[in-house]
């Protein structure tokens, strides 16, 4: 009897444990998605999406463009990496865009994007993109969805806190993640002389108000540490810029331990208006550097690369009132300013809280000199004096925060893999939703401007594991779309992304689609090798250079038979697409070419360089299915041995006299 009771007791205990286990099993994503989600992301075939979403490509070096809410991929814009599909970095016209002080670089690491703003609101003109590895900033023209300009940043390494812009697109900033010896000083120093020789810089690149053309104005010199992310002030904080920093320990090795020692690192408050005044009054030190500035012209359909040899450096500690440091717990990453411009949110990657700083309090502290010593000659404001408050126990590993314009903030948590919605005013947590898995950045359309769109939120996840059909060891990263129009965030969809998405931007489609270019006007084509009509097509030899002035129109090239090219010649195919109708590109490829194809838009001229290495017949053809007779759009180039005297001839639709005489025999 006793034994039976004991057995029963064990059974009951076991059942109890099972019940407990079952009840504690977390909900699967199947439970998370509501039934109404499908209708919210369904965009009928032929209908347009509500928003454009520009997503950084990370290690792909490119920028992708998605439609929201459908998650449909609309375009991948080549920026910092070559793209043989589009001839980017392979055509003679685009090669200079990838030029740097190190020569031509075929790859970049593209992390953050910022849409141009007017009065703190998205104006839909340009998109700025940073490159981490070889510090550069690109400007993408949203009329053409192409990279219009790339500027290299000297005195920098790991251009991470970039390309964030001021609220009227006066400046794009670029901060060094890696502090390094300055370009104008001897860099051949021991690595362990970090504290003495390594410096950080914050660069201010001015943007011309009408053309958008960038120019490196000045660089602020700061103590050596890691500058991570940044955002511009707005409203009351307009004229200020905020940067997060870590490694205030100034470690140069095993940073995961050595840069995590101090309880607090810093958020930097930079009075850029004051820096601008200082610079414009002719102060600052002119130093010799070398950096490339590359501009693409839609008139000449060509890029030019200029090397610039000087910049102005302003040592922050020499100018009182320029820069202040605010202690921020545990290696802050995200540095985000709310739509009102009053609150600055720092996200300590290792912190168990989120500090929210008040701009008004920062100003009071500065006025009262409420300082806690200095760091590298820069005053450090007392943490409590700058603090609006802390969000307690928000989650693990806070990274980035965006805003809905209704007083709420949304923060990603990498470690606990979730998004947490909280109210800025009273720092109360309102909602939390899991992401799949481990989000880095998140994005609310206009979420870093004065006027967030506030309907959707997209989380960009680093890990996807079981979310999609497996594709071997290498898996896509993902975007997850949430509806944030209600009190609770609702997961609507998730879809894979290109490369590794970091920060993203989005804007209502109408802001951008109305300006989208359909064709390049042939009349405006100022390419030095343009062929304005088939009658003008020709082949010209200049020494060992052969220039082919060719046209493409449905469905032939003119000329399409070329003879008299010799082994070792440098052949330049300058192809002008004569079409003047929307969506009629032509492609061009030649057998054995060691670069790539050309993809030529209507009214555009692009050039492919080809050095034939052996004699024979080399076909050329159109690579873009342009028309019903696309397969007929082809031709031949005859290559004769070096030094041969085959005459240079070219034709379309007729045989050469040599061939005719052969046929009549």
């Amino acid at each position, binding site marked *: 009897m006793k034994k039976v009771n004991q057995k029963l007791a064990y059974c009951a205990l076991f059942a109890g444990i099972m019940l407990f286990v079952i009840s504690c099993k977390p909900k699967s994503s199947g439970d998370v998605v509501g039934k109404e989600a499908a209708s919210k992301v369904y965009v009928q075939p032929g209908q347009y999406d509500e928003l454009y979403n520009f997503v950084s490509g990370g290690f792909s070096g490119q920028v992708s463009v998605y439609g929201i809410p459908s998650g449909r991929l609309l375009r991948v814009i080549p920026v910092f990496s070559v793209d043989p599909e589009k001839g980017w970095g392979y055509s003679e016209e685009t090669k200079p865009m990838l030029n740097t002080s190190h020569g031509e670089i075929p790859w970049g690491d593209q992390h953050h994007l910022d849409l141009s703003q007017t009065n703190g609101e998205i104006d839909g003109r340009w998109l700025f993109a940073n490159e981490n590895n070889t510090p550069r900033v690109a400007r993408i023209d949203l009329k053409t969805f192409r990279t219009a300009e790339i500027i290299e940043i000297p005195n920098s390494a790991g251009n991470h806190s970039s390309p964030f812009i001021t609220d009227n697109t006066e400046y794009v900033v670029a901060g060094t993640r890696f502090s390094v010896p300055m370009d104008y000083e001897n860099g051949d120093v021991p690595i362990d002389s970090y504290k003495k020789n390594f410096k950080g810089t914050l660069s201010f690149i001015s943007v011309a108000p009408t053309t958008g053309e960038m120019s490196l104005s000045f660089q602020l010199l700061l103590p050596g540490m890691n500058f991570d992310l940044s955002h511009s002030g707005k409203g009351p904080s307009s004229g200020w810029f905020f940067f997060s920093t870590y490694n205030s320990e100034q470690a140069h090795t095993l940073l995961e331990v050595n840069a995590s020692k101090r309880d607090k690192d810093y958020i930097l408050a930079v009075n850029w208006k004051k820096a601008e005044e200082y610079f414009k009054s002719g102060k600052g030190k002119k130093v010799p550097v070398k950096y490339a500035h590359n501009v693409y012209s839609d008139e000449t359909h060509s890029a030019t690369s200029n090397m610039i040899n000087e910049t102005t450096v302003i040592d922050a500690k020499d100018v009182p009132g320029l820069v202040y440091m605010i202690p921020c717990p545990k290696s802050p990453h995200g540095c985000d300013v709310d739509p009102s411009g009053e609150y600055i949110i720092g996200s300590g990657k290792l912190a168990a809280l989120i500090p929210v700083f008040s701009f008004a309090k920062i100003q009071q502290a500065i006025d009262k000199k409420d300082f806690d010593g200095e760091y590298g000659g820069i005053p450090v404001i007392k943490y409590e004096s700058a603090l609006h408050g802390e969000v307690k126990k928000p989650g693990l590993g806070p990274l980035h925060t965006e805003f809905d314009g209704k007083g709420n903030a949304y923060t990603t948590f990498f470690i606990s893999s979730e998004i947490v919605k909280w109210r800025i005013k009273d720092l109360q947590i309102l909602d939390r939703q899991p992401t799949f898995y481990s989000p880095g950045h998140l994005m609310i359309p206009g979420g870093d401007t004065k006027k967030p769109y506030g309907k959707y939120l997209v989380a960009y996840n680093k890990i996807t594991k079981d979310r999609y059909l497996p594709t071997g060891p290498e898996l896509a990263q993902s975007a997850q779309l949430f509806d944030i129009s209600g009190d609770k965030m609702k997961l609507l969809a998730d879809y894979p992304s290109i490369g590794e998405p970091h920060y993203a931007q989005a804007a209502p489609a109408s802001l951008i689609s109305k300006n989208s270019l359909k064709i390049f006007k042939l009349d405006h084509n100022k390419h030095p090798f343009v062929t304005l009509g088939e009658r003008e097509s020709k082949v010209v030899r200049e020494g060992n250079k052969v220039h082919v002035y060719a046209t493409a*129109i*449905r*469905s032939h090239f003119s000329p399409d038979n070329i003879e008299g090219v010799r082994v070792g010649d440098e052949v330049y195919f300058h192809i002008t697409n004569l*079409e*003047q*109708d929307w969506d009629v590109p032509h492609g061009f490829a030649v057998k054995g070419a060691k670069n790539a194809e050309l993809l030529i838009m209507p009214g555009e001229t692009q050039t492919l360089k080809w050095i034939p290495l052996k004699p024979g017949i080399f076909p050329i053809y159109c690579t873009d299915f342009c*028309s*019903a*007779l696309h397969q*007929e759009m082809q031709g031949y180039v005859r290559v004769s041995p070096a030094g041969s005297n085959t005459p240079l001839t070219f034709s379309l639709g007729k045989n050469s006299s040599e061939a005719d005489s052969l046929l009549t025999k």
Partner: protein
Amino acid sequence: MNHDISKGKLSVAQKLLLLLSAIGLVFVLILPLWRIELAAPQYPEGLVLKMYPQKLAGDVDIINGLNHYIGMKTLHTDDFMEFTVLPYIIGFFIACAILVILANKQKYLRWLVIGFILFGIIAMVDFYRWNYAYGHNLNPNAAIQVPGMSYQPPLIGYKKLLNFGAYSVPDKGGWIFIGSGILLLMAMLLPTFSRKKHA
């Protein structure tokens, strides 16, 4: 008034109709007379060929580009002497209408109406002739050759030509031209109707 008509002179109403007709024709000079609309799966937005008294307009280059597949001759304003003559002919009718008002004779009005209708018929015959010529005289080396197929657009109305649907109709100027003709006709018939009423 009837007294005037019986003398072979024009009534005020007739003069007004003539004046309106002349004003209408002034607008005809600057507006497109005729349009051929083309639609295909690849052109959901449609293509249009507009015929003004003095020129071809609309998507001429795109249509020429497409027509080369079937070997149709490319369309150019300069190839049609009509575009030189038409403005003068329309101008001539404007002048005639005003002269008829000034001359104030029923007889001249009848001549004007006959002339105007004749011109309309000749214009349509000429249009048909060109349509026929362009639709039938195809390049024998054309890429697309469908046995027995010609590509003559309809004189008026809708016709399917391979993947394109062609819709040929008067444009604004054409409608005003027709309106001007009706006004002239009304002016001519006015005395007949008023006589019947009074009889």
